[in-house]
Each structure stands twice: as structure tokens, then as C-alpha cells.
């Protein structure tokens, strides 16, 4: 029953979004529906532009699961990181200047995925706690260097503890929750959400069947279109 309610809420939420511009996946990412679509993706360890050093690991350990579930062959980020370290690459930022064809040659990767953490701010105010997350994902072809898919979003995720009905107890609980919250599931949720608009890959049963699926066009992109 709880699931049903959630589905209904989801429906209402989507219905409320009627005015937000949408596109089909095919319109948004045409390269993902022809032979430019990658089979194997090399996820570059996340670039962390925040002061929260711990955020990097949250995203690195939770990214291969959602990307693989979309039907792509994904190389374990921790091994990739070790290979890079051995080559003297300590920061993924250094990779941005390297021609992507290097990763086709050395890793057999059809595409590379850059993940940038632009914000990871934990807050707790009186009886509520949250974390503001701002992410950017760019998938590049190692063949043509073109952008195959990209996504960016900023969101606030609630980390408030369940209310006990006593305000002082709640205050303490929220402060404790924000300090000890397990951020691994939160990062995983953010990664899953990012890939919701990604066309399904070759290992997915939905491969080449999701072209007409509507995705939200970010307001920033929509604004650029009008210019």
C-alpha cells in the first residue's frame, strides 16, 4: 500500500511538471541510437570541486551499479584509479587534457565518463537536516571525442531523522543523523537519478526501445535554446 501511495504521488508530481519542456531520448541523444553508442564505459574517478573530501568516495563506490544496470560494461572505478596512480595521475583533472582515444587504445573503452561534484553541503537547521548536491556528468566518445550524453543537476536531499514528537529529542536526533547519516545510499540515489535519462545500453532488455521516452530538459539548456 505504501508503494501504491508513492506511485500516486509520483504521478501527481509528474502531472504538475507539464509546463517543463521535455524531449524524447532520441532527440536529446541521437548518437546513442546508432553505432556510436558505447558498449564499454570507463568511468574516470570523480573530480571533486568541493571542500568535502569525503564526497569523492561516496560517488566512486556507487556509480558502477546504476551505470551497469542501464546496460553498459563498466570498469571498476577503484582499479581504474590504481592504474592511473601507477601512471602518475593523482587527480582526474589531469585527464581532461588527454585525447580520449588513449582510453580506447589502452582500456578498450568506447566512451569515458567524467563526473564532477560541484557541491556537497551538509546542513542541519533546528529540526531538519539536508545535503545539497550538485553534479555534472559528461560522456565522451573515445572514437570521435564528441559528447554522447550529459546531465547536470542540483538537488537538496532531506536527511531529517524521523520525528519522535518531542522537539528537544528531535533536535538532538537531527544533529546526530546529519553527522552520522550514511551518505552511500544518498550518493547512489543521485547517481541512479542522473542515469534515468541515459539511453539503455546493449545489456539492457530495453536497449533501443526507449527512444520515445520523454526526459526533462534542464531549464538552463532550455534557456540556451531560446537564445
Amino acid at each position, binding site marked *: 500500500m505504501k508503494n*501504491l501511495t508513492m*506511485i500516486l504521488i*509520483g*504521478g501527481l508530481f*509528474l502531472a504538475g511538471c507539464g509546463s517543463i519542456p521535455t524531449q524524447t531520448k532520441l532527440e536529446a541523444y541521437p548518437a546513442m541510437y546508432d553505432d556510436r553508442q558505447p*558498449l*564499454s564505459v570507463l568511468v574516470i574517478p570523480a573530480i571533486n570541486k568541493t571542500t568535502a573530501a569525503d564526497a569523492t*568516495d*561516496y560517488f566512486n*563506490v*556507487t556509480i*558502477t*551499479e*546504476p551505470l*551497469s*544496470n*542501464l*546496460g*553498459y*560494461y*563498466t*570498469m*571498476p572505478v*577503484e*582499479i581504474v584509479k*590504481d*592504474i592511473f596512480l*601507477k601512471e602518475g595521475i593523482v587527480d582526474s583533472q589531469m585527464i581532461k587534457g588527454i585525447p580520449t582515444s588513449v582510453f580506447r587504445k*589502452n*582500456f*578498450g*573503452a*568506447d566512451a569515458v565518463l567524467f563526473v564532477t561534484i560541484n557541491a556537497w553541503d551538509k546542513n542541519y537547521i533546528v529540526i531538519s537536516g539536508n545535503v545539497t548536491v550538485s553534479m555534472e556528468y559528461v560522456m565522451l566518445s573515445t572514437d570521435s571525442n564528441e559528447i554522447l550524453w550529459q546531465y547536470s543537476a542540483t538537488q537538496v536531499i532531506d536527511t531529517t531523522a524521523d520525528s519522535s514528537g518531542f522537539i528537544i529529542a528531535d533536535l538532538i536526533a537531527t544533529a546526530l543523523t546529519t553527522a552520522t547519516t550514511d551518505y*552511500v545510499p544518498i550518493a*547512489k540515489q543521485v547517481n*541512479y*537519478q542522473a*542515469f*534515468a*535519462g541515459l539511453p*539503455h545500453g546493449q*545489456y*539492457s*532488455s*530495453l536497449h533501443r526501445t*526507449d527512444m520515445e*521516452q520523454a526526459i526533462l530538459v534542464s531549464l538552463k539548456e532550455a534557456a540556451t535554446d531560446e537564445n
Partner: protein
Amino acid sequence: MKLYSILIMTLVIFIGGCATPNTGYYWENYSGTLYNYKKNPNENTKQKHIKELEKIIQKAASKGSRVPPGIHAELGYMLAKQGNKSTAIEQFQKETITYPESKNFIERIYMMLGLRE
């Protein structure tokens, strides 16, 4: 009632592009044990992550589904680092059998670890 379920199903399909795995992979607590191992690298967290990887492989076997990408490779990598070279190579070979596109990547790991088949 039937119409009602169809309506819900449609909504689920529409919203659930993210949540429904269409590959049939079982990940168990992969990111949880990996995170703990990264955060506190010690014998205990390492063995727990190795166990989790083995559990993922067993689960796939019992469900008749494909082992998720990178799991055999990661298990092989962890085994190689603790000196179990022959079992490590077995795992790397399983990765390339399951996912032929991983060949160059596995070759790269062999180079890093100084392993040769």
C-alpha cells in the same frame, strides 16, 4: 480494477526508468562493503568485501543471471593483491568470458600486477 492496475503500471514504467534493473543483475551490498574497505582499509573490511563479491557471483549463479560487469575483475584484483595469483587469474578469465569487451582492460590489470597468463 483492471484499468486501475494498468494506469499504475504505466506510471511505474514511466517513472521507473531509473529503478527497474533491466539487466537482471544482483549487487547485494556491493557499494556498502566497498565503501567500508576504502574508508578503513584493514583485513576485516577487506575480507568482508571479498565475501560480498563472492556472494554476488553465487547469487547470479543461483538466479541464472549474468554476473554484473567488473565483479570478477575486482575479485581477481583483490585476490592477486593478497598473493593468490592462480585464483586471481581464474577470475580475470571469467570476466573476459562474460564480457569480451573487457579484454584490453584486463590486459592492463595484468601489466600493472606483473601477471601473465
